[in-house]
């Protein structure tokens, strides 16, 4: 991906009024991916929707990182199961 298409994590923090440590800890937990270019951190635009959700969970609902990880995992499982149910329904 072209570097121009990436979003600087610093800009993201200014935009959403959040600490870089939050973005960094999301990356540390494997919830998002950060790309390093010339020692600056960037995120892929595709990650924005996910990051906004994590911001809402953390800052609005007071859910800590471990809670966010658990919710994320369970929502993914729920989505997989919904797809499975849909696939089975489509067979009948």
């Amino acid at each position, binding site marked *: 991906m072209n570097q121009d298409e990436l979003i600087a994590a610093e800009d993201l923090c200014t935009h959403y009024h959040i600490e870089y440590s939050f973005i960094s800890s999301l990356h540390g937990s494997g919830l998002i991916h950060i790309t390093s270019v010339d020692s600056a951190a960037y995120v892929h635009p595709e990650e924005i*929707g996910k990051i*906004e959700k994590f911001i809402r*969970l953390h800052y*609005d*609902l007071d*859910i800590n990182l471990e809670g966010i990880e658990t919710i994320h995992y369970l929502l993914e499982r729920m989505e997989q199961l919904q797809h499975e149910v*849909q*696939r089975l329904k*489509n067979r009948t």
Partner: protein
Amino acid sequence: MDFVDYYKTLGLDKNASADDIKKAYRKLARKLHPDLNPNDKEAHRKFQQINEANEVLSDPEKRKKYDQYGENWKHAEQYEQARQQSGRGHDPTGGFGGDPFQQYTYSSGDESDFSDFFESLFGGTGGGRRSSRARYRGQDYQAELHLPLTEAYRTHKQTLTVHSKQVRITIPAGVENGQVIRLRGYGGEGVNGGPAGDLLITFVIDNNTSFRRDGNNLYKTEEIDLYTAVLGGEKTIDTLDGKIKLKVAPYTQNGTTVRLKGKGFAVYKKDGEYGDLYVTWQVKLPTHLTERGKQLFTELSKL
């Protein structure tokens, strides 16, 4: 328009403290927040209700007004005018500021997230109390598109009207029932310069054929008469791509399935690739025999 009991919405009594309201709201928000209940319209609706209740009860001025008029809210404006004329009214320009605690920023993208009752009593949509992190991406819109199976078989274009905007999309052949495609930037407008949300289209495939679809494969049952089953022959059947003539092998048993490679459903985003068609032969026995027919069957049975 009905009176809305905000205390009841949050499960509180009228003497609840600011802290009680905050706790009750957060507890319910953690249960009903749309991020935690994707595609759950009921949870979304309840979340809007608790959000509205919190909007009023967490703001001392709004709460005061709400408590004051209660179920007589329809007469609130008259009372206000009378009070102001007598010099005892509150400042009509202020009152709705303050931010005792964080306000959730989620918006449904509907015309209003607040009830008619709220707007009648407080005016506007309560948007003045959004948090300072206000440059948000717009809301994703959800839409359903019904397609007959025969149309889902071919790549084609369709024009949709979403929130008064015309959107022309290409629907690739092979789309599945329940499949969702995302059109970036066709959702709600961003808040304070944030990017627009996306449009999520869920396909609902209506099966208007005699085929059963499972992924890329199609299944069909075809009847053949007893004589063709025993002696062999030909049978012309419909596929989604037209009619084809099939050979029926002699001594074909009832329930025999034959696979027709590449005559199934289009494979999603793989141009020119198709699944298989499985045809199950159902042997139809005669329901009526002439005397001569009976005689011949009797002779056959004795061979």
